[in-house]
């Protein structure tokens, strides 16, 4: 078990990181050449009006005052209102609406990656230096080399345009309306008991999840392989075999648990690339998650939305890595020291 002290220590370490993250976001937005006051007032507004907006927003206060105010806002999850994307709507509201969409996509992609990546990696390691191994490795290497914004369009062309089997974009047919409860479309359609809508959602999400999953699968199978290859060489594995256990049982019983440890760290570190992948996937498949929101907000200089979105992404990433650290210490209690 994880000791309370370890959990507490890790939680405490979150604060400096989040503080640093908030500072970086603040710095980026203040280094940007655009002027938020002009964005809000509009290009053709009079100078007086622009000045009025600027002082209303507190943008003519000294930088340190703005910084302190910003930290306070971040601590209370108050990112202000959107200037452009959803004018006047609080950023926290927009994020709450759109975050589940991205999370659902990312989780499904991660799940697909684990489902296929781990067995492939294990197979590759157990059959090291055979044709199975070579094929899996080359496949995995190709998988991480193929950009999502290439595989996505190609699959859309094949399955939607030419074969007409799957829809091209979105995450549910436009004829369905499902009351958002959790924001996760697969869950919401089920909660509403609408089977047809659920099927529509599954069909819509299939390609985006496959595209996102291919990359994760490739990545995880590589990690699983190299971790497993290392574990197979360990003395305790030879001992187990010498004691007369079949090699399959040895691999499953002794190998997996040990091989998983580095793989889990990698899942945490790669969660960042999963989120990056989700942004690209959302763009290709026109899914309105926080990825497309960020791109939209940057294009339209909607600073509060950019701030909020980037912060949420960083916090999500940091929390996942915290979770990974804790899982890690459950699997290998030595880590705590």
């Amino acid at each position, binding site marked *: 078990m994880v000791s309370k002290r370890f959990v507490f220590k890790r939680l405490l370490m979150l604060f400096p990181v989040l503080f640093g993250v908030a500072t970086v976001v603040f710095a980026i937005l203040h280094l940007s050449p655009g002027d938020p006051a002009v964005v809000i007032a509009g290009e053709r507004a009079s100078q007086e009006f622009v000045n009025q907006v600027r002082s209303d927003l507190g943008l003519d206060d000294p930088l340190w005052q703005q910084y302190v105010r910003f930290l306070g806002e971040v601590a209370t999850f108050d990112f202000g209102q959107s200037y452009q994307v959803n004018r006047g709507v609080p950023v926290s509201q927009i994020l709450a609406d759109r975050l589940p969409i991205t999370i659902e996509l990312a989780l499904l992609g991660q799940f697909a990656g684990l489902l296929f990546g781990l067995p492939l990696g294990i197979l590759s390691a157990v059959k090291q230096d055979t044709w199975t191994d070579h094929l899996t490795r080359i496949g995995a290497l190709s998988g991480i080399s193929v950009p999502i914004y290439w595989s996505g369009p190609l699959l859309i062309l094949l399955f939607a345009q030419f074969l007409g089997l799957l829809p091209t974009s979105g995450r549910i047919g436009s004829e369905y309306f499902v009351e958002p409860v959790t924001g996760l479309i697969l869950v919401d359609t089920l909660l509403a008991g609408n089977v047809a809508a659920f099927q529509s959602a599954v069909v819509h999400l299939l390609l985006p999840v496959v595209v996102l999953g291919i990359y994760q699968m490739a990545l995880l199978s590589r990690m699983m392989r190299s971790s497993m290859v290392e574990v197979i060489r360990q003395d305790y594995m030879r001992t187990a075999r010498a004691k007369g256990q079949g090699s399959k049982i040895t691999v499953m019983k002794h190998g997996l648990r040990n091989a998983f440890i580095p793989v889990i760290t990698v899942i945490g570190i790669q969660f960042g690339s999963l989120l990056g992948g989700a*942004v690209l996937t959302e763009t290709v498949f026109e899914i309105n998650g926080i990825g497309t929101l960020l791109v939209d907000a940057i294009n339209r200089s909607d600073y509060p939305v950019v701030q909020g979105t*980037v912060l949420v992404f960083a916090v999500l990433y940091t929390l996942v890595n915290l979770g990974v650290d804790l899982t890690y210490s459950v699997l290998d209690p030595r880590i705590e020291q």
Partner: protein
Amino acid sequence: MSTETQTGTVDRGIVERLRASPFLSQLLSNRLAITGIVIIVGVVLIAVYARFTYDLNDLMATQFGTNPSESAPSAEYLFGTDGQARDIFPRVLYGAWYAVLYGTVTVVASTFLGVSLGIVAAYYGDLTDNVIMRTMDVLLSFPSLLLALALVTIFPEELGLWRAVGALTLVYTPRFARVVRGAALKVLEDEYTDATKALGATDPRLLIRHVLPNCLAPITVQSTLNYGLAIIDIAALSFLGFGASPGEPTWGMMLSNGVEFGLFSGAWWWSFFPGLLLALTVLGFNLLGDGMRDALDPRMRETVD
């Protein structure tokens, strides 16, 4: 390994030197790494060829009247034409130049920054180390593509694709700093460092002449693996609309056009060819990087009993 067999008259010097370096001989005996090198050399040749054969303005201008618009690949237009009636084939070739040029600058710049910071942090320790490495930690707590997206906005729009280079340089720097700091700390523990200091070497001399060369291996591997990533990320930023200007023949921009306009008309060739070359290039760097890592890590060399 038998040492007697290779004593031909060819070039004993090189053979000897290769054998002396387990890293190189290991790398060159790895078929996948060789494939990677071949791909990379091919892409660089394409890039240089395209750069000095085609006129960029011609490639960017619409070609209505000269070429058919949205025509499928044919003998005349190998990769077809796009919605602006531009021949896609030379554009895809020219895209290699963009990838190689901007990718190289990104990797070189982030390597330089990261290596400098890492070595300085390792050598001076204490406060310097803490300030540098904690800053790196913070940068590493953002998902990389998203940090790059946010960072692109701090550069003026006129910089075009150089904005992506600037943003990604800052995103990759912490990775190099970490790797180098770790390697440098190990080197600094060695006795020859003390000996060099005792002989009166100055800090810069010690760091550049003695510590740096001993960290080169991990730096090279990290750079190679990052090369593929840089090319794919620059294209991603281009694809998302941050970087290249609309007509520029970068792979990311072509893919973006392919999704925006080519997808619903079924014009698969808009996306297919630029993406194919992009994926192949990235694969080349990943193959080489993987081979390098295997060659460096002695544990990976042995085969299972």
